[in-house]
């Protein structure tokens, strides 16, 4: 496989790009693997990569029912941050952020991780205090966070409306190390990295059943035949309930849709990521020049990867309210992804009641940033048959015993998280 570098680009330029080879192989499935990961999204691919890299378990298959990277990993607003409230979350996301910080070199693939800063705006004193609680929690955990005032926000993002807003900006919680990464590149980079370590990335291979013997997992039925494996990891995001149900497991998870938008490409107007605090709106500008932005969930159970009109109105009006000079810009495209929402808004990375079966899911709308960290923790959990300290709280049992990790305090209503 070709190593990527500027030198290599130069050589290939001279010989009409003829020397490049496949980024990842297209192998047929083998009859058996040590570990099978279901789902070729960010989490599945990263899990396989770290299983091979960190734990030396390379006889691994990632089974993807369609093409890798076309699920949520390929359709999200690409915000990466670790600014969470509870240590159960922020320490985990911080691990992930640290992995992001060296990912290019690690994968030899430029995933365009760009730490341009993430600002969550606040519009009242009480909202400031809520953010301060979060920022202080981060700082106590050794994570960078700053509380900035209105003028500091203005300096970073002068195009916001500071003069005429219904909900005036008072300041923001800033994480400078936060930013964005290139969604597609993350999937491709991990696929290529896993492949390099010997992992089989198998596309067009849908898991249709999970075979158990004496209560233990022994393998999976797929559209390309039976594949044996003593350990199976689920990482199917929006389809978590279904694949878990194949092993008789019911979960506090519902699927809800989140939409995203991109505008026509324009010259740079906003350098950092900004989240509006008086509604549901967040925005960043891609390296190509398009503004990438989104809002809240559609608000009802859904598997429709389809944009809607009310959400377009909702998101764009908040966009113009926050950044009035965008009024005459045009929005180019609108799409959606299926989120596996848990009942407390916090993910699941854990063992399941079925021995040999592991669960990675419940990513809600925040699982992109988690990809390296989640892959790393999930690999650990599968390899050791025990969670790492960083994901020890992310269990299914927490809902039964009352140990929910509800950052928003929205309660058992997944569509509100």
């Amino acid at each position, binding site marked *: 496989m070709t190593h*990527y*570098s*500027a030198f290599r*680009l130069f050589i*290939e330029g001279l010989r009409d790009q*003829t020397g*490049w*080879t496949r980024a990842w192989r297209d192998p047929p499935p083998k009859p058996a693997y040590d570990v099978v990961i279901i789902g070729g999204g960010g989490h599945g691919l990263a899990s396989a990569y770290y299983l091979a890299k960190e734990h030396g378990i390379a006889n691994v298959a990632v089974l993807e029912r369609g*093409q890798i*990277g*076309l699920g949520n990993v390929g359709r999200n607003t690409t915000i990466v941050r670790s600014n969470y409230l509870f240590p159960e979350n922020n320490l985990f996301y911080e691990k992930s952020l640290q992995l992001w910080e060296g990912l*290019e070199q690690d994968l030899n*693939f*430029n995933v365009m991780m*760009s730490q*341009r800063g993430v600002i969550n705006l606040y519009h*009242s004193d*009480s909202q*400031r*205090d*809520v*953010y301060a609680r979060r920022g*202080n929690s981060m*700082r106590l955990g*050794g994570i960078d*966070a700053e*509380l900035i005032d209105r003028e500091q926000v203005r300096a970073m993002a002068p195009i916001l*409306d500071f003069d*005429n*807003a*219904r909900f005036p900006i008072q300041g923001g919680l800033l994480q400078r190390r936060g930013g964005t990464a290139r969604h597609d590149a993350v999937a491709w980079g991990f696929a290529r990295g896993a492949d390099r370590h010997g992992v089989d990335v198998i596309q067009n291979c849908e898991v249709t059943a999970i075979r158990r013997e004496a209560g233990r997992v022994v393998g999976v039925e797929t559209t390309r035949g039976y594949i044996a494996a003593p350990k199976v990891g689920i990482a199917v995001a929006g389809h978590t309930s279904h694949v878990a149900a194949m092993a008789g497991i019911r979960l506090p998870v519902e699927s809800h849709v989140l939409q995203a938008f991109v505008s*026509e*490409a324009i*010259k740079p107007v906003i350098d950092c990521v900004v989240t509006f605090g008086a*509604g549901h709106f967040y925005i960043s500008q891609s*390296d*190509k020049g398009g503004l990438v932005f989104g809002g809240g969930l559609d608000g009802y159970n859904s598997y429709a990867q*389809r*944009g809607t*009109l009310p959400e*377009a*109105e909702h998101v*764009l*009006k*908040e*966009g113009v*309210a926050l950044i*009035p*000079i*965008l*009024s*005459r810009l045009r*929005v*180019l495209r*609108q*799409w959606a992804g299926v989120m596996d929402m848990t009942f407390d808004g916090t993910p699941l990375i854990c063992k399941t009641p079925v021995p040999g079966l592991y669960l990675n899911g419940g990513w809600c709308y925040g699982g992109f940033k988690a990809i390296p960290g989640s892959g790393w923790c999930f690999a650990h959990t599968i390899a050791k048959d025990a969670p790492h300290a960083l994901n020890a709280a992310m269990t299914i049992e927490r809902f039964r015993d*009352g140990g*929910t990790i509800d950052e928003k305090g929205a*309660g*058992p209503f997944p569509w509100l998280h």
Partner: protein
Amino acid sequence: MSQPHRLAVGGRIDRSRSLPFRFDNRAFAGHPGDTLASALLANGVRLVGRSFKYHRPRGIFTAGPEEPSALVELRTGARQEPNTRVTTAELFDGLEAMSQHRWPSLAFDVSAVTSLVSRFLGAGFYYKTFMWPPSFWEKVYEPLIRRAAGLGRVAAAPDPDAYEAMHAHCDVLVVGTGAAGLAAARAAGSAGARVILAEQDFELGGGLLSEPAHESWRQSMIAALTAMPEVRLLPRTTVFGFYEHDVLGAVERVADHLPTPSDHGVRQRVWTIRARQTVLATGATERPIAFPDNDRPGVMLTSAAMTYARRFGVRAGERAVVFANNDTAYDAAFALHDAGVIVAAIIDVRKATPRADGAYARNIAVRLGSEVIGVRGGRQVSAVAIRARNGGAERVIDADLLCVSGGWNPAVHLQSHTRAKLAWDKKIAAFVPGSPAQAERSAGAALGIFGIARSAASGTRAGIEAAAAVGFRQASAFDLPAPGGDDDPRVEAFWQVKAQGKAFVDLQNDVTADDIRLAHREGYVHVEHAKRYTTHGMATDQGKTSGMLGVAVLADARGESIEKVGVPTYRPYVTPVTWGAFAGRDVGHHLQPIRRTPLHHWHVRNHGIFLETGLWMRPLYYSATRETGWEPILREARAVRQAVGICDVSTLGKIDVQGRDVGIFLDRLYTNTFSTLAVGKARYGLMLREDGIVFDDGTTSRIAEHRHLMTTTTAKAAEVLAHMEFYHQTVWPELDVRFCAVTDQWAQMSVAGPKTRLALQGCVEGLDLSNEAFPFMGVGDGTVAGCPVRIYRVSFSGEMAYEVATPAGYGERVWEAILEAGKPHGILPYGLEALGLLRIEKGHVAGPELNGQTTARDLGFDKMIKKKGDFIGRVSADRPRLLDPDRPRLVGIRAVDPSFERRLRGGAHMVEKAASTNSLGWVTSITRSVELERWLGLAMIRRGPERIGQRLFAAYPLKNEVVEVEVTSPHHVDPENLRVRA
């Protein structure tokens, strides 16, 4: 102001009037009826823009909204609008446009050097480099990339124009007004259906606008439609998305053709159209062929050149070569010829066509079995290189216009939004609509049907069927255009010329056929992978003209059929839509409607400083000099602690609950018991969610035997009502209870402080306010200033307090009467800030404590949890980890240092030692105390009540602050509750 390329006659422009305009600061003129594109071409302007990646010179490629290349910044100042297609911008008097994405000038663009190194910049090159040294990505490489990317610039100031929404309902929506659309609308309209006919163009007629022979038919159709009262014509309206439940979105450009919108008029509107049936008569888009340098200014779609000649009276060039794989190009070539353009040759990839004779009859050379292998000229085509397909020598033909026609793609985008699958039509080598997934049908060219007469017939059919599907039968027939000869498009699938050089498959994003092949080589073989890797079809035109080329090149590389490869998902928007149009009126201060209390204007007149809380506007404090800081807040709070104050609490949610089973219902709603409450009494209640977490609180009064008045927090009022209705209607429908929200009915004011009784006694009539007659938690009726009032003896501040409610229309009068009566006692109005100060001193919980994460026990409300009987949240509240004694629980905290220098802040964390990083909990609410003269607050601390008396630290690392505090009871003031009962 000559227009050298304007034809002497013909076209739909008004030559009697001239419209001056400017492009790149040069002055030109065009005519009404022109687009900016036709006016530029009439003036001989060929170079209009630069391409995204290589900054190659680009001209006008199409005559419609599918334009990939000719994008400009339209208008100036606050109205500047980037990436505007010159092909759809209607010319108006004084129009100004600037080319974009070039520096220092369009003709001399420094960045064009990228073109020289383009061999190193193949698809996805950035994924493979810029990784070393690691720190350079963010500091050096990325900033360079970001600066180089993007196209136009947004305006520097907020948009002065207004937008609005429009809601519409119809039986049949027809999209497109070509022969098919006009016929469909007329068929449906004459059947009696309510019809909306939307057309993105400023003139109705689609392809008919370039067909003078059918002009009288077009006019008769429009006249007939205009005469139908239930048919609504919407020109300049693009239907941009087909959404679920047969709702379509459209944007009407009301004033984009004017220098500024009219007085009281809007610039654009977004229409939400609920259509029972839809006819998609959206026509077809011509597609190009990939060959080296197929992006040069002067290379143009054949139909576009024809449209410029026939509709706009403009010669897009003097000497044209036509390169085609189908018969429709001949008609266009003949039209060009007839309009006075020299057609030097038709290069046809096919071996034969019956149309060749028509060409020979006009003395046009036809080279069958040939292909174009290159274009001469940089900023402008000067000649075309061709060769025979079976190998043969290159020949060069002089030309300044190269018309290309690779066949037609039906405009299937809207249908694709519905998730209908496309079907492959071999005859026209294109995708056509598949079987519908929603209530729609296509007609005319959108369905792959060519020829005016056949399209009109197809439209008629679609219109009749659509109307019939919703119960309308056609009443009268109408004339269709006469069939016009041979309508068979006869196309041979031909996509790319394999020759050396950059052959573009995406003109705007500079994706070449080689890029697609490279993606394939690297394993990005699925059409969606290839799209994302090369950015093919991702530009502002979403690949409308050249998208299929990329697919075809990929299919060729895969050795599979185009049908098998498929196209990337089409999604809204058919063409990009202005943000402002979606926002409509909901911008600036109008983002959300403002909710005002009945006392709002009193606060405004009396120097209230307002805060937006949800939709409400509430006074934070009052200050004529608009002071900032704590002084005004302390002043107001002191008035309450020492004398008397009055505060507008009208925002509290109020729900009237009646019925025989109110007691039972409230017992299940609250953790404590209400069925035992006496008439004329109030009680504080606590509600949980079903997961056992506190939901809301408030006092509820029993007004009559079967009638209670509940109050909720301001924030949760709507949620609480819905929650009650949910449990009543779905869980306990057998209970006789009825709810009615009465928040708006009442103005409510809290009058609090040791002198409250004195003040109120001065104005309340008909109610004995003495402690004996009207004790704490009493409720009674009286009057103030002749207005009826209901008075509740409840206290949030911890002082003796009465809440006075009066019907909203009397609010100001009662408020002023109380102020007047309180004057001798030193009454002051107080705002939200002082209210907060007082409740924190008193240790009453509010939003920061009831934040959806705390249990009743966490808050010290153990005693309010009844032991017997069902209530919402009862079982889940007993889950083991919610009973864990180690959970954070509510306590008070007080700064050890009494000076106000080291301030406490909400959101601080509690730690054992100043330098500790182990959080024991957090500070929920803080205030400067007027009673204890120091910072104090409330906090949730692990095993908090056990720590009372301990010293801990409130750490606020965000400001590098640590404040030593003492843990106390939450009730900083009057823990025995003597004052409220005084």
